[in-house]
């Protein structure tokens, strides 16, 4: 059984801790059952399922640490793994940035596990794929999609009193639908902890509509446009920005949060005052583990408050050096929004471009967080509150920092890639060239 209960996990970890001869020892125990199904050209191409249960031991002498892993759980194997970690640690160089292990921590309850997802079997996956492929075949469209699900647990314990345990599930689905002549393409993606919320047919129908509506594109001149970014489009740029909020990089002067003359932009208003970004492991829409990989508690943290940078994330070493609280990086974020739907945002737009998703986003300049990438799978021109016609795909060169200063409207957040992101209406979004790609 790959998913151990809290008690079962604790029993194994305690046994391993008892074998230790090192100054410090930390044990990680992880297990999961994951599966997937992939299809293309309206036919299943691959599918599989694996289970995994593994234990990792980190032993420390002074500032030397060593890690060994094992997937056998008899006493002899466990003890052997502890001895091996100790041997590796003794041979390792001193890590001058080593931090003593954490003691007991308080964790909040999060609901990141759903029985519906843990119960997924090959039959469920085949049916999910069929529900997506079948409507496409009936409309002479071509489906290519991927469904991946996972159910597992993660536990950490050490000889300083830390013990953490969490069970979680996830299901991720994406579908690309293309017209038979290759002139239209549409996309939809969904992710949940709870698979009972997943409707592959409904998601596929959106991708089908987009594919059919995106044939016979017109070419617009590249330039600055008002855009409506669907959550799937906005999330990648926002995620890239959130991943760049490391305090050490900012303190060292090599981040967009570094400041002229030294120091950081913590406390500065860097965005439109309607922008508030926070994280909350217990949010019922995007529940995550209540602890980070190193055992630190994940708490509700406001990163950007009404446009002002409020928090950056820290390694434990850097936080101690700076004399601040060691806030870990979040595993999901929430961009607070309003109540308007995507349709409402379109209705309120005189002239603009609706973007389904971006593709191949890469950093161009870490100083300004300039990114480049392209629109894909459904890009439309909006006039007088209505979608008028599909347009050729664009390449953009834009920074999320600039984008979040050019906010026209913020809709109601929906789940996107483990985050809550609203559709965003942005003015002066920079498209620099056209692409012939469909």
């Amino acid at each position: 059984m790959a998913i151990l209960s809290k008690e079962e996990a604790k029993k194994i970890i305690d046994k391993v801790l008892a074998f230790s001869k090192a100054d410090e020892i930390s044990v990680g125990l992880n297990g999961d059952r994951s599966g997937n199904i992939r299809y293309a050209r309206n036919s299943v191409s691959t599918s599989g399922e694996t289970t995994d249960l593994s234990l990792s031991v980190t032993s420390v002498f002074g500032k030397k640490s060593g890690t060994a892993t094992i997937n056998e759980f008899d006493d002899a194997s466990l003890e052997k793994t502890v001895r091996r970690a100790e041997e590796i640690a003794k041979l390792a160089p001193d890590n001058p940035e080593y931090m003593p292990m954490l003691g007991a921590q308080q964790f909040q309850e999060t609901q990141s596990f759903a029985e519906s997802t843990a119960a997924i079997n090959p039959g469920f996956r085949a049916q999910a794929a069929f529900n997506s492929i079948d409507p496409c075949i009936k409309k002479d469209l071509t489906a290519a999609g991927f469904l991946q699900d996972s159910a597992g647990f993660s536990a950490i314990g050490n000889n300083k009193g830390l013990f953490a345990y969490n069970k979680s599930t996830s299901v991720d689905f994406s579908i690309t639908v293309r017209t038979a002549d290759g002139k239209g393409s549409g996309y939809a993606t969904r992710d949940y902890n709870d698979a009972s919320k997943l409707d592959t047919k409904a998601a596929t129908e959106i991708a089908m509509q987009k594919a059919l509506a995106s044939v016979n594109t017109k070419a617009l001149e590249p330039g600055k446009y008002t855009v409506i970014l669907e959550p799937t489009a906005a999330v990648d740029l926002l995620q890239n920005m959130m991943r760049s909020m490391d305090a050490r990089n900012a303190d060292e002067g090599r981040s967009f949060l570094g400041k002229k003359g030294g120091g950081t932009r913590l406390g500065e208003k860097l965005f439109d005052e309607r922008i508030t970004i926070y994280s909350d492991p217990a949010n019922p829409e995007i529940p995550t583990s209540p602890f980070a990989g190193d055992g630190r508690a994940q708490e509700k943290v406001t990163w950007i408050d009404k446009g002002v940078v409020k928090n950056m994330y820290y390694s434990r070493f850097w936080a101690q050096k700076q004399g601040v609280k060691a806030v870990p990086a979040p595993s999901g974020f929430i961009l607070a929004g309003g109540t308007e739907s995507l349709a409402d945002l379109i209705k309120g737009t005189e002239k603009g471009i609706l973007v389904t998703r971006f593709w191949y986003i890469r950093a161009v300049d870490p100083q300004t967080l300039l990114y480049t990438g392209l629109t894909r799978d459904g890009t439309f021109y909006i006039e007088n509150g209505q979608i008028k016609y599909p347009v050729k795909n664009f390449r953009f060169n834009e920074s999320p920092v600039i984008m979040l200063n050019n906010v026209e409207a913020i809709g109601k957040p929906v789940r996107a890639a483990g985050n809550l992101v609203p559709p965003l209406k942005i003015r002066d979004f920079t498209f620099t060239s056209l692409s012939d790609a469909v």
Partner: protein
Amino acid sequence: MKRRDFVQLAGLGTGAFLLPGLAMGRNVSPEAFLDSGVDVAVKKRLADAALNAAKSKGASYADVRIGRYLNQYVVTREDKVQNIVNTESYGVGVRVIANGCWGFAAVVDVNNEGQMAKAAEDAVAIAKANAKLMKEPVQLAPQKGFGEVSWKAPIKKNAFEVPVKEKADLLLGVNAAAMANGANYVNSILFLVNEQKYFASTDGSYIDQDIHRIWPIFNITAIDPKSGKFETRNALSAPMGMGYDYLQTNPADKVAGVTTRYKMGYDMLEDATAGAKQAKEKLTAKSVEAGKYDLILDPSHLWLTIHESVGHPLELDRVLGYEANFAGTSFATLDKWQSKTFQYGSKQVNLVADKLQVGSLGAVGWDDEGVNTKKWDLVRDGVLVNYQAIRDQVHIIGGKESQGCCYADSWSSVQFQRMPNVSLEAGKAALSVEDMIKDVKKGIYIIGDGSFSIDQQRYNFQFGGQLFYEIKDGKIVGMLKDVAYQSNTQEFWNSCVQVCDEKDYRLGGSFFDGKGQPSQSSAVSHGSSTARFNGVNVINTARKI
């Protein structure tokens, strides 16, 4: 199948290095690397157990891959060793065709025939279940068996036999050189990979292969505290299919010029010394004026443009739509190839696929479905002539045998079509970089790879770089910054007017070419000599926030 191989190396500077799948496995001590692994006679016995079980359950074809994957990463910053990672992964993947459909099963740490037979039976059961959803049966190009054969990468010094301390000391020396020459920060990493792969199939092949890869890299940051600006310079090294010998240069490996570049041997200390000075120089370099320029592209840069705009669009599975939901499809459709007149590039452009090239990442004796490797044309005299195809695809382009470019990144992953080394042939006429630059009125000389992005059908791309030099009236006049060029694949390759001769030929490449869902990583090299492209659109990437 789950990929548990996403390792984020913390504290490596903004957007620095992500390490996707390298078939990570269990952590081991470095001494474990010196163990030679399971004996070849035992592997044959295990493989036969799986092949026989598959056949007895009704498989019409079966292959077995017994893989041992060793990885070592030494990670440092400034005067500190941050991490030394040693991993080993050992297991077996069994692939079968039953009822006309593929099935696959994998099992970790195999040591007896019973486990092998069980994996084969599971694979057959999966094939039979999936056959019900299949539209057409798999058509496998015939392949003769090779009997018991072996192949070893022609390395001179096994990097896994070099003490870890020596490697850490090398990197710390490199960091010290960078710091002494003006760097504010420096991260450096040495990646080492050894794939020990045993392949057996019902065609009668038993193939034992030993593959080595090495990649030393650094990232130097220089900061101007007054303005708050920072610039970076990455290593001009290439990942290679070599041993530790790549780090032992001789003068013949060095290419002199505005900065030294390297062939089959890399002087990391020298490059870091130059890199620190150049990162500082970038702080005060002129910001480029947007417009059309003639580009002179060094092989340390051009490999990535070849990879994205030639390597990927000519993967047959993309062309056919199998990657539509992730990587995308391709502009290089079958009708363009069938016409025999599609001008992919100018007459100067000859692009070859090559799994034989010595020292390259793609070089092996046989691919991961037992096909002997080869070299073939993709674009000849500018015209599209072929794709990259494996056994179950090659019939679609009228081929009788696979091109031998099937690969799986782990024993636990299913093998599929992956990019061979794809390279631009050197120019036939004698031509040096200096002579090429002499004729350029308004141009930019680009060295090293930087930011890269291309659309899902591989038309529109944008590339940055590490070093940019302005060329005016045949002379290099100074350094530029904020440079990126945008073009369209066919336009770009048709604007190629000159390629330097073979004396300038070098390899570039990556360990981390991603494809498939779940994603698999593949290592691939791309060779070229310096080439000239006329009238390419250059944008200025400077912004204010």
